[in-house]
């Protein structure tokens, strides 16, 4: 009844190698191809102006890529997204951790948070443009202000769930503030930070679209709105997918390797 382990260690090691090293890339490729296939089939079946096929979208992409227009708008949007992201994550994390740690601060600022969380993007953007003029600072500021409450909410939960045992240890062993934040707090907040930054990037980009729609003269949002006015879905998708491709590249080439390193210590399940 006993099944004796027969595979040799060497064999196992190879198998594990294949499992761990080769598959990720392949899997991602298969995944992307699957997505493309679903889209293509859906577009072919729908046969509608509203859902163009991949080649139709690629045509627009190629046209605007060759003319350089796409890169320009993409770069403008990415610039705004990057600045707003850094600002929102930094400010939001500080506030969120503060509120998570101090119960009094949390009680006091919670209503403010709920307010800022629920102010429509439109209101913030319009007020920013009105007060600070139709310029980059207003645009980026408006995006960041829209995102900050979301970062706060997530990081606050993380700070509330901090392990008091480790904080006590750090206190007794007199970790300085820097040490404590870097080695005790941040590693515990990593999953919250990951969640906040992934959904954060997406949210920021969506707000950037509105910001560009309402008062900027370049950027992907500006272009998408233009194509929307013409009801040119292929154009909208071409710009959307160009941005998604950048995000995917960031995810696969920066975020995932970084996360893999940061969570090395977790026992593989």
């Amino acid at each position, binding site marked *: 009844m*006993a099944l004796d382990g027969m595979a040799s260690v060497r064999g196992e090691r190879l198998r594990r190698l294949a499992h761990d090293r080769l598959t990720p890339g392949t899997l991602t490729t298969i995944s992307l191809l699957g997505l493309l296939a679903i889209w293509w089939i859906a577009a072919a079946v729908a046969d509608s102006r509203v859902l163009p096929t991949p080649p139709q979208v690629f045509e627009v992409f190629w046209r605007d890529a060759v003319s350089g227009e796409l890169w320009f708008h993409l770069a403008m949007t990415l610039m705004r997204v990057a600045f707003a992201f850094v600002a929102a994550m930094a400010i939001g994390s500080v506030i969120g951790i503060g509120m998570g740690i101090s119960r009094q601060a949390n009680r006091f600022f919670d209503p403010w948070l709920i307010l800022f969380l629920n102010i429509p993007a439109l209101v913030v953007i319009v007020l920013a443009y009105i007060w600070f003029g139709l310029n980059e600072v207003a645009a980026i500021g408006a995006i960041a202000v829209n995102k900050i409450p979301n970062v706060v909410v997530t990081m606050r939960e993380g700070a509330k769930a901090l392990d008091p045992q480790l904080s006590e240890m750090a206190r007794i062993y007199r970790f300085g503030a820097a040490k404590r934040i870097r080695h005790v707090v941040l590693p515990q907040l990593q999953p919250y930070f990951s969640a906040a930054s992934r959904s954060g990037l997406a949210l920021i980009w969506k707000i950037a679209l509105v910001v560009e729609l309402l008062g900027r003269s370049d950027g992907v949002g500006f272009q998408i709105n233009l194509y929307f006015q013409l009801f040119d879905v292929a154009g909208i998708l071409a710009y959307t997918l160009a941005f998604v491709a950048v995000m995917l590249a960031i995810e696969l080439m920066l975020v995932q390797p970084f996360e893999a390193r940061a969570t090395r210590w977790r026992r593989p399940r």
Partner: protein
Amino acid sequence: MTGGLSNAAPGAPLRVSITRKAFRGADGKLVEAIAHVAFEVPGGSFVTLIGPSGCGKTTTLRIVLGLETEFEGSVVRPDPDGRIAVVFQEPRLLPWRTVEENVRLALPEGIGTEDLDELFDVLGLSEMRSRFPTELSLGLARRAALARAFAIRPSLLLLDEPFVSLDEMTAARLRRLLTTVWSARRTTALMVTHNLREAVQLSDRIVFLTERPAKIRGIHEIKVAREARDAEWRETELRRLDREFPGVL
């Protein structure tokens, strides 16, 4: 390298035969944890594993439990449908459930809860039933883990250093409780301990392991009935074991 884990009929022995177990460390290096550990726990008997810290005892239990599947060798577990209870080396209670809830959650359908009062009483937990694990001292938390294991009336019981962090009086009381629980149903039990006195008092067989990677250092059978193991017998036995396996006592 995936080792075999299978189940034999009830009453059958637990057969452990691990020919190699290695971990891949986060630094990429291989950690050889077990070199060759093979022993048997006859159905309804009590076997103790003793070995230096870090030699692979917990790993052996994990393999028996099926929590580690990548190993060379085989494990045959008695009684396929029998309940298994474990006292892990850490209490492993659900921090968001009270002590009582933690125990009740582990109870399978068929088992009534009439006996819980008595169990909590013996374990000195009566007052703590409705408290959360974060409010317990480590010793109390360990006792809650013991309560959980005893409550389900297992057919296979695995204990990883169950009585550390307890004062001698409590530990003695719990050892007596264990003997009662165990002999009432002739549970098959495998315990890890560093305490040779405890082992001598409770076991039918003691398996001594070497330093990591673990090999069998020797197996000692105790034929004397538990009731006959008085203080004097114990001292002689301990001295004998100390001579045979120096360093353990």
